[in-house]
């Protein structure tokens, strides 16, 4: 069950079926619940997360109807109603769907509801669905029908019959009025309906009568479902009366589209990370051009520069009928600050340069150093594509000098050295013989056994050697099972 803090006590906000059968209800304090059953499984309630999930689920229900909306959990706090006579729980989250004209697509109202509840069951939700002519009736029937039924369809003009057996709270009138009605012996909606309407208004006010009318469909001003509006896709489209063929025309069209799209991006507070330009030819084929930027960007001039280089790649064929430009990947950005000084301008022009080079040569070609906490030199530092690079806190300077050029992979060298562990005296690299004069080492670097990847690497003994001409090299001897152990050149020092 879920618990949340309400009025400085931890109260239960939701229980599962087993807990409900055992007698726990939302509104009990956690302390009481624990006293009854010490081994309770409790998790903290997350209303914000629930709201988000509900919104997503409401969007998922868009497969059944274009107009859907999520309803927050029911109004009454279960805690407040604890003192009143026990009212059947009708809480829980809800989703509204306006199914006008949608049910025939699923083979009828019953089939649609069956499909919906089954799919929701597969998603892991226990759901109850009700379809009625008025929102009030549907709400009441969905929340207050007995558990065993997973969906109910109220036939047209059958609202009165459907509502009569339901308890009074199913009208959504609030616990105070429901308690009042209970006190007068009016437990079901049918009892209330039996009373004359005029006296209802006099005794209980307009709310009850308005709710009844809305539920029965007498009130023409029905409560509308305020649906989620689908987000307008960030795209712009330009169609031509005559097919265009030259690169200049395409460039002009692209500039126009970029202006429109960037305005839309600005209104939405977004910046583009990836843009796709699609050109449609009269025979139905398309040509597509995708550019990406390192940072979210909505400057039409900069984006046009990135397109300009690649526009010649578009094969115009018999001409181009229509061009669309869509932001397939966008991120929210803050409004651009201008005039903060040359530092920001320089950083922006560096971004622009990186974008230009990355779009021309490929995103893998522009790289930044990545430092990792590792002993193995080839892992400790390397160049990774700039989209993946984030400078970790690993310190760049290692305690021992490292070569300014690292060979990937290390090259085998023939060496004359003392066995089994001695330093090298002579070595041949790329057919040139080097005589070692000065040598520092060994520095033992072992493979990292704690990493999951199995590597063939063995323990390495590194030597920093200098030859008679002054060349400085980083040699190592690897222990990988061969005898005698092989020598490799890993890098050149400055």
């Amino acid at each position, binding site marked *: 069950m879920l618990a949340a803090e309400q009025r400085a006590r931890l109260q239960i906000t939701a229980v599962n079926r087993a807990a409900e059968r055992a007698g726990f209800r939302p509104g009990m304090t956690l302390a009481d619940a624990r006293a009854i059953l010490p081994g309770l499984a409790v998790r903290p309630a997350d209303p914000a997360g629930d709201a988000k999930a509900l919104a997503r689920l409401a969007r998922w229900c868009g497969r059944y109807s274009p107009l859907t909306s999520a309803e927050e959990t029911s109004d009454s706090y279960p805690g407040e109603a604890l003192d009143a006579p026990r009212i059947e729980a009708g809480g829980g989250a809800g989703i509204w769907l306006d199914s006008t004209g949608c049910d025939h697509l699923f083979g009828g109202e019953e089939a649609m509801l069956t499909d919906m509840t089954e799919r929701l069951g597969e998603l892991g939700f226990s759901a109850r669905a009700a379809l009625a002519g008025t929102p009030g009736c549907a709400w009441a029937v969905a929340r207050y029908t007995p558990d065993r039924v997973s969906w109910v369809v109220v036939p047209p003009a059958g609202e009165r019959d459907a509502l009569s057996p339901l308890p009074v709270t199913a009208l959504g009138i609030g616990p105070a009025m429901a308690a009042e009605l209970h006190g007068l012996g009016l437990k079901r909606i049918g009892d209330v309906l039996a009373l004359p309407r005029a006296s209802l208004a006099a005794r209980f006010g307009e709310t009850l009568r308005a709710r009844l009318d809305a539920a029965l469909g007498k009130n023409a001003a029905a409560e509308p479902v305020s649906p989620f509006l689908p987000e307008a896709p960030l795209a712009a489209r330009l169609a031509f009366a005559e097919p265009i063929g030259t690169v200049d025309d395409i460039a002009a069209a692209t500039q126009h589209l970029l202006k429109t799209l960037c305005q839309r991006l600005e209104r939405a507070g977004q910046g583009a990370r990836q843009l796709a330009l699609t050109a449609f030819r009269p025979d139905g084929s398309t040509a597509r051009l995708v550019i990406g930027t390192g940072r979210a960007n909505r400057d039409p001039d900069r984006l046009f520069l990135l397109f300009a280089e690649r526009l010649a790649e578009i094969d115009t064929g018999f001409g181009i009928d229509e061009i669309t430009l869509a932001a397939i990947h966008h991120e929210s950005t803050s409004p651009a600050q201008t005039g903060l000084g040359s530092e920001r301008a320089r950083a922006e*022009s560096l971004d622009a*340069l990186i974008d230009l*080079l990355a779009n021309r*040569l490929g995103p893998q070609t522009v790289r930044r150093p990545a430092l990792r906490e590792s002993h193995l030199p080839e892992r400790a530092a390397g160049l990774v594509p700039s989209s993946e690079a984030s400078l970790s806190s690993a310190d760049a*300077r290692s305690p021992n000098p490292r070569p300014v050029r690292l060979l990937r992979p290390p090259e085998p060298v023939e060496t004359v050295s003392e066995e089994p562990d001695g330093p090298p005296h002579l070595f041949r690299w790329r057919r040139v013989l080097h005589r070692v004069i*000065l040598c520092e080492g060994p520095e033992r670097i072992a493979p990292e056994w704690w990493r999951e990847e199995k590597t063939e690497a063995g323990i390495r003994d590194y030597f920093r050697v200098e030859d008679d001409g002054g060349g400085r090299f980083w040699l190592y001897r690897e222990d990988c099972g061969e005898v005698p152990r092989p020598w490799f050149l890993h890098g050149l020092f400055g």
Partner: protein
Amino acid sequence: MTRDIPSPERLPSPSFQGPKNTPGGKDRLAALRRRVGRIEQGFRPQGTRAVPLGVQEIDARLPAGGLLPGALYEIAPAAPRDAGAATAFCATLAARFLKESDGALLWCLNPAVADAGEIYPPALARFGIAPDRLVALCARDDATVLQAIEDALASGAPAAIVGEARDVSLTASRRLQLAAGKSGVTPILLRPYGAEQTSSAALMRWRVESAPSRPRGWAAMLDEPGFPCWQANLFRSRGGAPGNWTMEWRDETGDLALAAPLRDRQAETAASTA
């Protein structure tokens, strides 16, 4: 020329005194100097302060008193095994320009040229290039590298650019020099051993060779290599004299210095064992 060409009898006599001593002559000379200066402007950036290399003796010999930003430099190793030395020297030069400005360093790698591995960021950090200011471009051929350098110069974003290219024609080097002068960004070309030595419009051309290191203290006792030493041969310096220096990189100061003369190790060991 608005004046008429003088007729033969009005040509000046052989004892022509020269522009300095004629009344309007000084102005004409000054104007002529300005014109030549404007023509040369493409080859030498005006109004920029020289960046000191850090070694007083070398700086004194350089025409501007140091390294000029916004000009083209060229570094090549003297032998294949000196690739590391050339790279390290290139890194120290680039670090000097990075110190004076706050841009990034764009290093255009070209495996076909370097043939000695990839640059290793922690070692570059030792020579003064912080990893967060380094952007590397993995190019495949010279044309890509030169085009990338030109784009970077045009954008003006980096503080310095290192490009590894094998063949750079005179025209290409002139274009780079002009673009560098306009934007103030310094391109440094790192060429491999064995590239054709064509003439170039670079401001300075260096040839770097590894020199034996001078170990001191513990390193001397244990026969370990000392600090990196290079024999840097400035064989072409526009507007200045060439020179040849043996320099040493000192880790403790993060600076270059002229290397002490090499002691004769063999003579020493012979003397000590005798």
